């Protein structure tokens, strides 16, 4: 793990059990069924962690036995935005934790002429500027598409600091690029890997997440 992590980056607790989950999904011999099950478990943990960065307000309730409990109430509306197509895989995990959450979609692909990330399609909740946004993309490699996605969200009047970017694996380069550009957007990542190879794949990584999840 790199020594100087940008302050806006949060990782899951690096336990042996989390490492074991990653070992399964990294293994190229892992069956698609297991890949689905174990990546879902990580996604659930990530979403739970991501939600912790939403605001809460003090709230006092009376318990069934008549005692009072000074707790907190959830505050602020949220929505999910997945970066197609791999990000879609994280929607189910979000829905398991937040029932009937609204989810928007963004399709970003590399423009072959300019080698820049280009927006092809977006469908976002109409009142998105009033919501906290959980941006979902499983792999943060170069950070190109995530940066583009935040740009799109900002065009829809979502403030940077209301966006929480959730991913399974990040590269140090990607984190540096993304956080350099949007320092006030929080990044929740499960694991930070060694780096990128010449084809901009994360190593050791887990290959193409969407490919393994949907096609292999």
């Amino acid at each position, binding site marked *: 793990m790199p020594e100087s992590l940008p302050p806006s980056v949060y990782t899951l607790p690096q336990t042996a*059990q989390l490492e074991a989950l990653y*070992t399964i999904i*990294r293994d190229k011999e892992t069956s698609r069924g297991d890949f689905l099950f174990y990546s879902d478990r990580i996604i659930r943990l990530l979403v739970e962690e991501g939600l912790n960065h939403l605001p809460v307000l003090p709230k006092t309730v009376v318990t*069934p*036995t008549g005692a009072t409990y000074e707790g*907190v109430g959830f505050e602020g509306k949220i929505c999910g935005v997945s970066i197609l197509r791999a990000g879609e895989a994280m929607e189910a995990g979000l829905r398991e934790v937040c029932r009937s959450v609204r989810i928007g979609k963004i399709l970003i692909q590399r423009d072959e002429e300019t080698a820049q990330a280009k927006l092809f399609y977006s469908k976002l909740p109409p009142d998105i500027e009033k919501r906290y946004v959980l941006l979902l993309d499983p792999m943060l490699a170069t950070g190109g598409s995530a940066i583009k996605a935040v740009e799109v969200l900002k065009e829809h009047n979502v403030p940077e600091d209301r966006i929480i970017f959730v991913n399974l694996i990040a590269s140090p380069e990607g984190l540096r690029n993304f956080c350099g550009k949007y320092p006030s957007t929080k990044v929740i990542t499960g694991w930070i890997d060694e780096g990128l190879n010449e084809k901009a794949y994360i*190593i*050791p990584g887990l290959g193409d997440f969407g490919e393994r999840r949907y096609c292999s």
Partner: protein
Amino acid sequence: MSVPAEVQEEKDQVKLLEPSRPPMSRTVSNTLNPGCRSEILLQAKKNTVLKSHGRPPWYDEDGKAIHDAFVIGIAGGSASGKTHVARCIVQALGSIPTVVILSQDSFYKKHGPEDLKLAFQNRYDFDHPDAIDMPLFAACLADLKAGRQSNIPIYSFKDHNRLDETKYLYGAAIIIVEGILALHDPDLRDLYDLKIFVQCDSDLMLARRIRRDVTERGRSVDGILEQYLRYVKPAYDNFVQPTSRYANIIVPGSDNTVAIELIATHVRRKIEDRSRYLRQHLARIGPMDLDLKEPVNRCFPNLTVLRQTPQLLGIFTILRDRNARRADFIFFTDRLSTFLSEKAMEFLPYKPKRVTTPVGSTYVGKQLAVDHVCGVSILRSGGPLERGLRRVIQDISIGSLLIQSEDSTGEPLLLHLMLPTCIRQRHLAARSFVFLLDAQIGTGAAAFMAIRVLLDHGVPQENIIFVTFIVAAAGGVRVLRRAYPGVRIVCGALDPVLRESWALWDTVALGQDQGDSEKRDVGTGTPTAKTREEAESEGRKVWVVEPGIGHIGECL
């Protein structure tokens, strides 16, 4: 000769015994209770744990077993009336929690092809001591006597051989062993607390044998006599009759009601002595003698409380709210139970594993390093945690323990258990990890009993991970620590208060302002008490955790 009882029969047995449940009393003086119960007990099945009500605690406040089971050995000639004597004793004992009648017939040796041929020709000497697997018999009995589980063999008289499956037995307070050679083996004899020989005239035994084999087994008188003269009579004279000298009591094979009454009185007194001992010790378990000054995390290093994140606090705020909607309650217990299960998984051992990723890199990660993992849920309130556990290990087997509080004393009773196979088998249990599930630890009485059950089966303390929503800091968690320092507890919240209350009072009184059926359905199971007086007259005391989340079984 008996064929081992089947599981269905065991269920029927329990069902039949329940309606006439005797007063919950661990002293047995007033419980000789003739009537419909006696009929049932007279037909008591062998090799089955019979129970008239739940099993009270069999351990002290340090978690150590207080005493072994009381073992009675009954020998005597074939058709001398051993089984009858055994059943009469069971009947005369009245409301003894758990009794098992163990039959020597289960322990016939596994036959090779030659013996098998002889057996089918009626040329195999079943009455000779060599026909019995005495070491296995003694080992099974020693396990049961020490309160451990045992998987006894099943012998099929149809196939003349031992079956591959075994019969799982656990938790008998009294064990009655019956068989013609029950007093023959010195190792077996050492295990008996009381040795009985049933003495009967040879001609009476022969007469009974002929009648039984003709009517029940459709055999010819000639065949019966040939077998009798060739095997039964010599074995009786040479091996069975001589063991009568080891007996503490010789009981006549007929007209023996006085003898049985004497034996039952003796056994009752022995058991009663033990009960008093037990109650005295258990009375000291409770939150009263606990030192509340020590902080819990120092006092209980094996207690893990989830990180108190905003989301977790928010979830608990919803669960604790008495006006929470039922749907919300279900959804958020589910979410919390998944999170707790993930946390609990961290306490399993892991070992390094090297894999190759699809991009061709090598990655040295981790892999679970356990042979068997299972769950055991304490019914009913452990149920909500099962779904969370299944989200984490899809195909995990989850057993159950039904533990309820005795109304008058509040002490726990073990009513039923169904454990995963990896715990039933002792050699697997030693290598199994168990997630024990219950909604909360208040007084800790149920948790205490459940852990004792697992330890009895050979699961090491360090392999038990107790998963629960709430632990009462002032409650039994400290007693658990003292008794079972190796057990890990994972919980969502640590609540400060544990207080005694009347069962029907709090929930109903507070539930009155809830007209909306969409609201959380508190107190559905006990809607009778309208006033505090009514609740008190019901006489059931409970311990309430505060702030707590109410009675989870009723909320779901």
